[in-house]
Every structure is written in structure tokens, then in C-alpha cells.
């Protein structure tokens, strides 16, 4: 088992946003976490990443209990999050952002070839390698955020709303990219509001409603579930 959440509850101050959720991601899988705004999707990712400490329950990565670890320690394990809103470092160039992705790595030679790999995947980033990240378009920033995450050699890639705020054409492109990453064998935990696309891509999916998991199942089955269709695909 790659990742397992066991009855995790968490929140902000006195407000509990997650009321004991359990989920898992197996090796080689793409798992989608869908749900409405405020259902607790981002909170779930932030608990996994160590940005929020779970109030109850535990998070296991490769069968190791990582609850309460610092975010940078969790990242170093290969549990990599591309946060909502992309969060590229606007004051740094594209190339500096990518090399920041390799901050924890020591294998200089492979870092170089990984960067070439990212540029191959995203030719647009190569063209703009010495531009400040803040000057990129939203779609390009999302590519940079994903490229930077790939520089971290993720064992599990967690994407928080990668299509948010992008034009429809770019949304399709982002999902093509995620699909390509999936095909290269990297497991993905995908948080999305675009349930249709998220379910089309995933092997397994969870539906969050107000901090609890309302439905879960194979993505194929959920796409045919009348309740899910009515609430999320209608």
C-alpha cells in the first residue's frame, strides 16, 4: 500500500473540516477525490502533506506512520503536492523554479537530465526558461508547477485542482498532461471539481461531502451510479 488514511479528522482552529475519513492509494493507481467547494478536498491533501496536523487518526505512507511529520520531511519521502493556485515562485525564473524542485536532491547529473525531460514534456517552458515565473500565463504556470513537482521524483503526485481558473482548451491540455504522467507509471492522487474529467482518468475515486466520504468505488462504477450522476455529473 502506497498511501493510507485511517479515520483522519482535521480542521482549522475550532472548526473541524474533516470528520474521520479513510482512503487509500495503491501503487500504480490514479485516485480521484471529488466533491463540492468546501467539502474538505484541499484539507485532505494538506493533512497528507503535513501542512495541517490531524486531530485524530493517522496517515501512512509506504506503511510508515507519518502523522505529525513536518511538510518538508514528508515531501522528502516522495509525497509531492502541487498546491491549489499553482504557487510558482513569481520572482524566480522558470529554470530557477524547476531547480528548486530538486532542492532536496544530491544527484546532480540526474537532475540535469530530469530537467531536460521536463522541457521535453513542456516545450513552452523551455522557450521561457529565463523568464520570471510571474510573467507566465495561468496555463504555463500550471505546467511549471507540475514540472517542478516532477523534478522532485514523486512516488505519489498529489494535484490540487489543476484545472482551476483555466480556459476550457487549457483544461483539456492539463488533463492530457496528467494522463501522460499516469502512463509513465507515477501514481496520482487528483483533487478536482471537474468530476467528469477526474472520473474519466482515475482507476478509483472517493466523493467527499461536508468532510465525510459519501461514496467510493471504481471510477468506472461511480460514473454509472445514478446518485453520483445526479449530484456531480448532471
Amino acid at each position, binding site marked *: 500500500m502506497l498511501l493510507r488514511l485511517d479515520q483522519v479528522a482535521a480542521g482549522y482552529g475550532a472548526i473541524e473540516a474533516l470528520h474521520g475519513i479513510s482512503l487509500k492509494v495503491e501503487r500504480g493507481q490514479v485516485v480521484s477525490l471529488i466533491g463540492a467547494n468546501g467539502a474538505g478536498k484541499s484539507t485532505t491533501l494538506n493533512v497528507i502533506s503535513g501542512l495541517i496536523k490531524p486531530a485524530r487518526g493517522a496517515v501512512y505512507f509506504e506503511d510508515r506512520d507519518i502523522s505529525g511529520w513536518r511538510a518538508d520531511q514528508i515531501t522528502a519521502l516522495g509525497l509531492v503536492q502541487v*498546491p491549489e493556485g499553482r504557487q510558482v515562485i513569481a520572482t524566480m525564473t522558470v529554470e530557477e523554479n524547476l531547480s528548486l524542485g530538486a532542492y*532536496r536532491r544530491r544527484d546532480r547529473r540526474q537532475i540535469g537530465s530530469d530537467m531536460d525531460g521536463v522541457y521535453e514534456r513542456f516545450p513552452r517552458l523551455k522557450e521561457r526558461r529565463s523568464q520570471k515565473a510571474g510573467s507566465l500565463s495561468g496555463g504555463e504556470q500550471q505546467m511549471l508547477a507540475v514540472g517542478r513537482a516532477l523534478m522532485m521524483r514523486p512516488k505519489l503526485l498529489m494535484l490540487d485542482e489543476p484545472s482551476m481558473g483555466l480556459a476550457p482548451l487549457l483544461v483539456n491540455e492539463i488533463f492530457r498532461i496528467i494522463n501522460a504522467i499516469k502512463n509513465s507509471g507515477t501514481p496520482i492522487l487528483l483533487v478536482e471539481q471537474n468530476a467528469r474529467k477526474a472520473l474519466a482518468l482515475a482507476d478509483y475515486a472517493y466523493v467527499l461531502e461536508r468532510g465525510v466520504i459519501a461514496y467510493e468505488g471504481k471510477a468506472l462504477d461511480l460514473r454509472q451510479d445514478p446518485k453520483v450522476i445526479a449530484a456531480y455529473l448532471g
Partner: protein
Amino acid sequence: MISNEFLQQVVNAISLGAIYSLFALGYAMVFSILGVLNLAHSAVFMWGAFLGLITVTEIKLPLLLAFPVAMVGAGLIAVALDFLAFRPLRRRNAPRISQLIVSIGASALLVSLSQLTFGTDPRRFPFDILPSGAIQGLPFRVTLIQVIVLITALILMVLLNILVLRTRLGQAMRAVAFNQRTASLLGVNVSGIFASTFFIAGALAGIAGVLYGLTYNSILPFMGDQVALKGLTAIVLGGMGSIPGAVLGGFGVAGLERFSVAVGGSDYRDAVVFLILFLMLLVRPQGLIGQKEQTRA
């Protein structure tokens, strides 16, 4: 004569500006990651001066060693400040105003400790520590101390620039300055970066203290007051969290100060500096080369 006097004040301004810049750099670096002015920075400056002094007068080491001792000592004081004063507040997500207030308290504590240890009479380096006469054959008066001040400051500024722009640590510092959560998701140990930044800021303040002490040869527990507001003006002038801005601001403030002396307003030199601070906050609060808060680095 007037042009001679003017030239002389330019020389003085460059030397004084180098010290203000070193001091202001520490302010700016801590501000860029903390988002708060560390008002205890001037007390760290004062402790740096005393550490340099006792290295020479009590431990009897050569002056050359006073610089590294003051830098390391003042750097460690600054790190201790972060651990004991700022870190507990960050843990509790305390508002910035609490951090500002705690830095005022820390400053008072450090000044009192220094009074307790060193008394309130001015202390001096031995008068023969450096030749105090002017270097011969120049159209203006410049002392060896002024030359040392300028060279030391320039070397440190170049090193700092390399550190921030070209090293892994500098890359992490810029990431933390931009956004702490994002930096931690990239594997940066944010607490470690805070400690490193405080150390470097403290070390710069410490050596600035020694240089200031050598220039005026009077070291007092209250000497930090003389630079605290000059440094603040410098970073307001240059742009709060900006490193080049701090250097520009430091030389700018020293220039204004010396210029008012040159035109005969020696008594008004501080008034001129603070008038500029006031106007700057009114007209261009982001500083001469500052940007919006979100993009400070």
C-alpha cells in the same frame, strides 16, 4: 573651499553609508521572511561592537580576529532571538504586531544586559590600534579606518549577493520569503531557513557594530539607537524587503546626513534624514526600487 568641504563629505558619506548598508541589509533580510521589522537588530549591532572590543582589549587577540568573533557572536545572538522570541509566536500564529512588540522587548533586554556587563561609560579600542592619520597625497582626508570600512562592506555585499542569488541556501531563502507553505512543500525546512537568515543578519549587524565602533571609537550600550532609525530609513528608502534597496538606502541616508553637514546644518542632519523618511512613507511607501509586498524577495 566649499567644493573641498563637499568632496570631504562625499568621502565621509561613502564610509558611513557602508556601515548603514551592512546594518540595513540585516533589517531587510529578516523583514523579507518575517514580514516584521526586528527592532532588536540595533541591539545585536551594539553587542557585535562590544564582542569585537573585548576580543581586542580582554582576550588580547589581534583586531583582524575581532571581525569574525563579532560576526559569529552577533549571529548567534540573533539566532537565539529567533528561537526564544519569534519562534514561539510563529507557532501560535500570533499577529505581526506581537512579533514587533516582542522585538522591542528583546532589544530592551539586550541593552540592559550590556549595561550590566559593560557599564554605561563609553569604551574604546586602544588608540594605537590603527593609524588614525589621513592617508597622504589625496585631495581629501581619508583614514585607514574609512578604507577598511568600505572594503569590508563591499566584500560582504558581494558575498551576500552571491549567496542569495547563486547558492542552494539563497534559493531556499528566496522561496521562504515568497511563501513559507510553498517552500515547505518543496522540501525546504522553513525553521532552518529562519535560523540561517537570522544568523546572517546578525553577523552583518555585528561587523557593522565593530566598524562603527572603530570609526567613532566610542562603544556604549545605547549606541544602537544612533543607527536604528537610520537603518529603518534606509530600508524604507530602498524598499522594505529588498537587498539592493537596503544598500542603496544605506548610502542614500548617509549621503543626506553628510550633505546637510556640508551645507552647514550639522545640527539638523537627523532632522533631514527623518524628514525624508516621512516624505517617503507619504509619497512612495514601496521604496525607490521596492515592489508590491507580494513580490518582495
